[in-house]
């Protein structure tokens, strides 16, 4: 494989970056609340009332037969496969190939292996010849990744493929009746690329409070996710609102200017509580949680894809992304939507195969 030439800011000559393509991928197995009821004493109504979740998808865990191999020789575990599927779809939609991508950023908190990064086999599967790295900022991961992608574009990268992908079913404690019903698997991908004109990333804020590790964690070889739900709920609402307000202020826009709010999909009640405090009407929330559960790093790109594919976004719209997660981490960003790239004019680097 020929080495990929490093991008140079001077040769780039562009000031802005845009999300020009988007796609998502979900595993086949649908796990309903009725399925969850076979594991422990709970009810569909109880889960729906507290979380808004009716079903989720699973690539692993007690509802998937046969269980996927623990150690696939090519490194393509379930997280990598979902990431590849979403990434491939986003590339195809944009008329791009892997070698048009300077950097793959894979946001995940459920990497397939301890070593190497899951982005490595994904880069190979997508024939990406640029760099690749994982970002683990838990459920704030995708928004961390978006700021990272925009920064790489500002530093001269032409295109970044940004993916959020998770197999939370592998790290769920399926005996914990307080949170096992929350999590789901899936992936979402966007292409962030350099465009002439103004920047799309208008304001952002990221942060972490490492004194709150005990609120949500999973250990190597342990029973799975442990979470203090009510404490997380309270902190999540406050932290996310504060972060979003900082991003709005830095972007010099008001909450009323936001056309679409894409929060991390943790719990519909958290999403509603955040929107209410920000003064964003409920109708402007992008929500897929009913069908996906909490897919951590994947939740924002999955919700964004659903919203964009159903015509909820027009060029010029302002989008607010906001996530919070284990750590506790948080991140928010105000982004100007530009719409899909014109696939009629493929990039000069597209191979003539």
């Amino acid at each position, binding site marked *: 494989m020929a080495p990929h030439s490093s991008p140079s800011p001077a040769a780039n000559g562009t000031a802005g970056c845009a999300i020009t393509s988007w796609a998502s991928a979900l595993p086949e197995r649908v796990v309903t609340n009725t399925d969850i009821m076979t594991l422990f004493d709970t009810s569909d109504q109880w889960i729906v009332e*507290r979380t808004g979740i009716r079903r989720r998808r699973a690539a692993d865990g007690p509802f998937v037969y046969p269980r996927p191999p623990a150690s696939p020789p090519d490194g393509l575990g379930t997280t990598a496969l979902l990431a590849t599927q979403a990434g491939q779809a986003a590339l195809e939609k944009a008329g791009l190939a892997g070698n048009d991508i300077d950097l793959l950023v894979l946001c995940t908190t459920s990497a397939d292996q301890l070593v190497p990064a899951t982005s490595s086999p994904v880069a190979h599967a997508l024939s990406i010849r640029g760099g690749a790295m994982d970002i683990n900022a838990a459920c704030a991961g995708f928004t961390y990744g978006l700021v990272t992608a925009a920064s790489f574009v500002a530093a001269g990268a032409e295109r970044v493929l940004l993916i959020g992908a998770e197999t939370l079913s592998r790290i769920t404690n399926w005996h914990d009746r307080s949170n096992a019903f929350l999590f789901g698997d899936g992936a979402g991908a966007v292409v962030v690329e350099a465009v002439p004109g103004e920047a799309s990333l208008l304001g952002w804020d990221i942060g972490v409070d490492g004194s709150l590790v005990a609120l949500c964690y999973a250990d190597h070889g342990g029973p799975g996710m442990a979470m203090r739900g*009510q404490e997380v*709920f*309270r902190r999540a*609402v406050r932290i996310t609102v504060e972060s979003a307000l900082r991003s709005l202020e830095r972007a010099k826009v008001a909450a009323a200017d936001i056309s679409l709010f894409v929060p991390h999909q943790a719990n519909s009640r958290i999403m509603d*509580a955040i929107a209410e405090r920000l003064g964003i009407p409920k109708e402007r929330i992008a929500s897929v949680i009913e069908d996906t559960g909490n897919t951590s790093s994947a939740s924002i790109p999955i919700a964004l894809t659903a919203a964009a594919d159903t015509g909820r976004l027009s060029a010029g719209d302002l989008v607010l992304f906001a996530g919070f997660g284990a750590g506790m981490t948080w991140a928010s960003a105000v982004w100007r939507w530009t719409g899909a790239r014109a696939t009629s004019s493929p990039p000069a680097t597209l191979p003539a195969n």
Partner: protein
Amino acid sequence: MGPEESFEQFKECAVEVLQVDPAKVVPEARFAEDLDADSLDLVELVMALEERFGIDVPESELEGVETVEQAFKVVSSKL
């Protein structure tokens, strides 16, 4: 702020967050049985009370709180 006034403010928060008839928010009302409030409703109520009164209520102090009177006691002790 006197206890009556504090309770009125407490009541306003409860009515707004739990969306219940103000007449139902009496000291002996039980959150789960009488006000149809689940654990997350209580978290939201406490958040609203913290904001209204400018106080901080740690999670540990809410353990065993089942009635309006008990919750109001926790809040009053911070005022």
